[in-house]
């Protein structure tokens, strides 16, 4: 699914990869692929992650990982970093999710009573990136669907998600709700429907696999 998500990145894009699964997408990009990775703590042009032995104490990404630069990287302050996001210069962000609703609402920052560390930069990424896609397991650890008719958790932003990459499927958020685009190899449409908490439109013909 991570490899499949990586194919979502078009040449020339400015992309922010959220903490967790999305961060791994970088491993599927060719050395020659023209893209600019952004991190909200103030860097455009993220290079490979470094082990602590080779880390620069002043060079991290927003998740705290030690990263590096590439030829043409630039550092800037937190106001400029989010100016870039809010003014429409971020072509794509890939985020994790607790829940996604069939109208594209995203909940990924708070579980009342359990998890409330603050939203960080997640709200602006979700609300203002030109395209927001989600990378997530299809269900939570208890097996409950993460794709739902409505979010039950506090939302990060409404109507922001365009596409969802899970371990089972690629699903688009359309004006009519969730629509199946691709199945993971070996997973049936019935299994995907079973694991999804809202109606799922199927393609007219065969569903491609990834």
């Amino acid at each position, binding site marked *: 699914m991570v490899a499949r998500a990586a194919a979502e990145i078009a*040449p*020339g894009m*400015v992309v922010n990869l959220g903490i967790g699964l999305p961060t791994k997408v*970088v491993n599927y*990009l*060719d*050395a*020659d*692929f*023209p*893209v*600019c*990775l*952004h991190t909200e703590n103030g*860097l*455009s*042009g993220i*290079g490979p992650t470094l082990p602590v032995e080779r880390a620069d104490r002043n060079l991290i990404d927003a998740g705290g990982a030690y990263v590096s*630069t*590439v*030829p*043409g*990287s*630039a*550092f*800037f302050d937190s*106001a*400029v970093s*989010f*100016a*870039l*996001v*809010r*003014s*429409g*210069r*971020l072509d794509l962000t890939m985020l994790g999710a607790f829940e996604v609703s069939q109208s594209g609402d995203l909940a990924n920052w708070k579980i009342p009573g359990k998890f409330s560390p603050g939203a960080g930069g997640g709200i602006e990424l979700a609300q*203002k990136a030109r395209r927001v896609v989600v990378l997530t397991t299809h269900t939570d650890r208890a097996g409950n669907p993460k794709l739902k008719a409505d979010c039950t958790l506090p939302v990060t932003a409404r109507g922001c998600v365009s596409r969802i990459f899970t371990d089972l499927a690629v699903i688009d958020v359309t004006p009519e709700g969730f629509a199946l685009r691709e199945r993971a190899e070996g997973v049936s449409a019935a299994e995907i429907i079973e694991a999804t908490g809202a109606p799922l439109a199927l393609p007219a013909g065969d569903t491609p696999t990834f």
Partner: protein
Amino acid sequence: MRLPDKTTTLEEAVSGIADGAVVMVGGFGVPGTPFTLIQELVRQGQRGLTLIKNDANEAGMGVDHLLAAGQVDRLITTHIGLNAHAIAMMNAGEIEVEFCAQGILAERIRAGGAGLAAILTDIAADTELAAHKQRIEIDGKRFVVETALRADVALIHANSADPFGNLDYVATARNFNPLMAMAAKRVIVEAERLQPFGGLAADDVHTPGPFIDCVVELGDLSKEYAVVRR
């Protein structure tokens, strides 16, 4: 991964500007004014433009060529005192001029670049500049709503650029350039020097590449860039 290359030709870069476009133009006096991009816009002849620029340069220089060619309907600016021709056109009703306090023009442009809707300030509240602007009360004090400015195109003059559009500026040629470089749908840069990728130290970049759409390298500089002998 490598960073994208945005270098292009002068003609190609400016041809993306449509009639009726809102165009931000960097510079404060001569320093930082993108004279070459302006000359190409004069040559291509797009009309009905709204210009946003700190000043109107001087008669016979810079944006005055656009005024003289009748390409400008409207100018949003802070001070045009060095251009008697622009003042005459304003007084004759040939261009519409909106004046703004200088730092507020800077902040309105920056707000546009930062994706904000507006800023609230007490600047110029007692003057005719803010007479017709919306006011709102916060904690019992009234402030002027200064709405964000965005443009279709920004014309930027940089000292150097790399192919991705990372920029630096020199001395007081910085002025409005970094603000306008954030605040337009299409941002076109003329750079005195094109550096290779990595030619600008990442800590010394004044405008990060993600804001930029087109990079044009300048050849020999025209006389307009030179010291003005008064």
